[in-house]
C-alpha cells in the first residue's frame, strides 16, 4: 500500500483529501502544521508528499526545495497543491514532480498521484 503525506493548513480540505485517498487504497498521514513535516517524513516514510503552497506562514515551494535538496528526502516525489494556477509554473524551479489545482476533479487527482508514484519507483 502506497503511503502519502498530505500537508494543508485547511482542515476541511485535509479531511477531504485524506478520505478520498484512503477510500482509493492509499495509506495517508495528514498534517495541518508544516513544522511537523520532517518528523512525519522520518516517522511515516511516505512514497509521495502532497504539499499545499500557501501554508499560513510558510511557502510550500520553499519547503519542497528543501526536501529536494536534502539527501535523505530528495527521492520522495512532491506534488504541489494550490488554488493559484500560476503555481504550476514554479514546479520546475522547486523540483516538484507535478501540480494539482484546487478545486480538483477526483479522477484527475487520483491519476496524477498514481502516475507520479509509478514514475518515482525504480522498475
Amino acid at each position, binding site marked *: 500500500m502506497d503511503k502519502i503525506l498530505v500537508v494543508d493548513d485547511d482542515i476541511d480540505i485535509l479531511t*477531504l483529501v485524506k*478520505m478520498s485517498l484512503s*477510500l482509493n487504497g492509499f495509506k495517508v498521514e495528514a498534517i495541518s502544521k508544516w513544522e511537523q513535516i520532517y518528523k512525519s517524513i522520518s516517522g511515516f516514510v511516505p512514497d509521495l508528499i502532497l504539499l499545499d503552497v500557501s501554508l499560513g506562514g510558510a511557502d510550500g515551494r520553499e519547503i519542497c526545495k528543501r526536501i529536494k535538496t536534502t539527501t535523505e528526502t530528495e527521492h520522495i516525489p512532491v506534488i504541489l497543491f494550490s488554488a493559484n494556477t500560476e503555481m504550476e509554473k514554479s514546479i520546475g524551479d522547486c523540483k516538484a514532480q507535478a501540480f494539482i489545482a484546487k478545486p480538483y476533479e477526483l479522477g484527475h487527482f487520483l491519476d496524477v498521484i498514481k502516475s507520479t508514484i509509478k514514475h518515482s519507483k525504480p522498475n
Partner: protein
Amino acid sequence: MQVFTSIIVVSIFAGIFIATDIKDYKTRKANSVASIAHIISANSITPLLFQDNNEAKKILTELKNTSPDIVNAVIIDSAAKIFAIYSRVDAGPLEISHFLNGKTTEFSGKQLFVSENIMNEKQLMGKVLLEVDLSELEAIKKSRYEMAVILLLAAAVLSFLIASIVQRYISRRLLYLVDKMKQVSVTGNYNTTIVDNGKDEIGTLIRVYNNLMEQVRESQHKKDEFIGIASHELKTPLTSIKGYLDLLNTMEERQPNKQFVQKASDSVTKLERLIKDLLDVSKIQSGQLQLNIKEFNIDELINETINSFQMVSESHTIVKEDGLHYEQVLADRQRIEQVLINLLSNAIKYSPGENKVLVKSKRDGDHLLIQVRDYGIGIAKDELSEIFERFYRTKDSSVHISGFGLGLYICRDIITRHGGTIWATKEPKGSSFYFTLPIQQNSVTNPSSNNSNN
C-alpha cells in the same frame, strides 16, 4: 493667427520708426538751413549798408559749394526789392508767396522755405530768403519704406516659421497624448506613463494624465489583489464542496440521490468557471495573462473538446466537418481549449430547442480558420462587435442567459495574443464565430502521418 499678429505689430513699429525718422530729419534740416540763413543775414549787413550788390552776390554764390541743396537764395532790402540773387543751375523761379505768411520756416511739397530778417541795431535792413531742395528727404523716405517692406516680409516669414515649429511641437505632444489615451481606452491597459519635461500648459496636462493613470493603476492593483485573495478564498471552500460531492458520487448508487449529487456538481462546475473568468479578466487587465506556448496538434484538441462536450450535452449534437489533418500549431493548448469550450457552450446556450452545432476548420493561407456555427437565436447586426466587450450581455430578452458576460472578452484577448483574430457573423439562421491562428511554416504537417494533406 500668430503670423497676422506679428505683422501688425511690426508694421506699427515700422510706421512709428519712419515717422520719427522723417520728423527728425526735417527738424535737423530746418535748423541747419536756419543757421545758414542766420550767417548770410549777418554777413549781408555790410553789403546792404554800402549797397554792394556784388559782395552780396558773392556771399550767396558761396552756397553752391557749402550747401548744394539750396536751390534759390535771395536777399531783399527793406523796401522788399531784390538786392542779390543766386539760383542753382537747374532751379525754377522762386515763388515769393511762400515767404509772405510770416513763418520763418515752411515745408511745402519737396521744398523747404526759410526766411531770416537782416537786423542792424534793431533796424530791419532786409531779408534772406532760401529755398531748399528736399529730394534727399524723398530718397530717405523711399529707402525707409523699402526697408519697412523687407522687414515686414522677413517678420512674416520668420513668425510663420517659428509659429509652425511651435505649433508642430505643441500638436505633436497633444496628438501623442490623445494617442495614448485612445490606447488606454481600447486595451484597458493602464501601464502607460508619458515622459514630458515641458513647463507649459501641455506639460501640466501630461502631468495630470500621468497622475490620473497612477491613481487608476493603484486602484487596479488593489482590485486585482482583492480578486486574487477573494478567488483564493472562494476556491478553498469550493474545493471541499466539489471534493465531497465527487466522493459522494462515487459511493452513492441510489436514485434519485445520485442525480441530486450530479446536479450539485454541475452547479459547482459553473461556479468554478465564473471564478476562473473573473481571475482571467483581472489578469488581462493587469497585463499578467501569459501564454504557455507549445507545439500541439489542433485536430486532436478540437476532437477532444467536442467529445468532452458531447458527453455532457444531451440536447445538442456537435458535428465536425473535417478540413484539417494533423495540423501542428504553436500555441497555448489550455487557452485555445478555453476558447473552444467558450464558443461551444455559447453555441449550445444560445440555441435552445435546436439540436445541432457545427464545427469547421480549414487552412486559410498562413492561418488556420476555425468556425463554430449554431442555428439558434442569432445576433443583431449592431451587436456583432459589441459582444466581445467586457460585461456585455445580449439585449435580446427572449432568452435568459446566465454568466458575467466575460467569456468572449477573454476569448478575444487570448486569440489576439496568439496573433489571430476572432469575430462573429450573422447567418440566415443562428450565427457563426470564427477565429484564426497563425501557422508556423515548418510545423504544419506531421511527416509520420499517413493522412498527410499534401
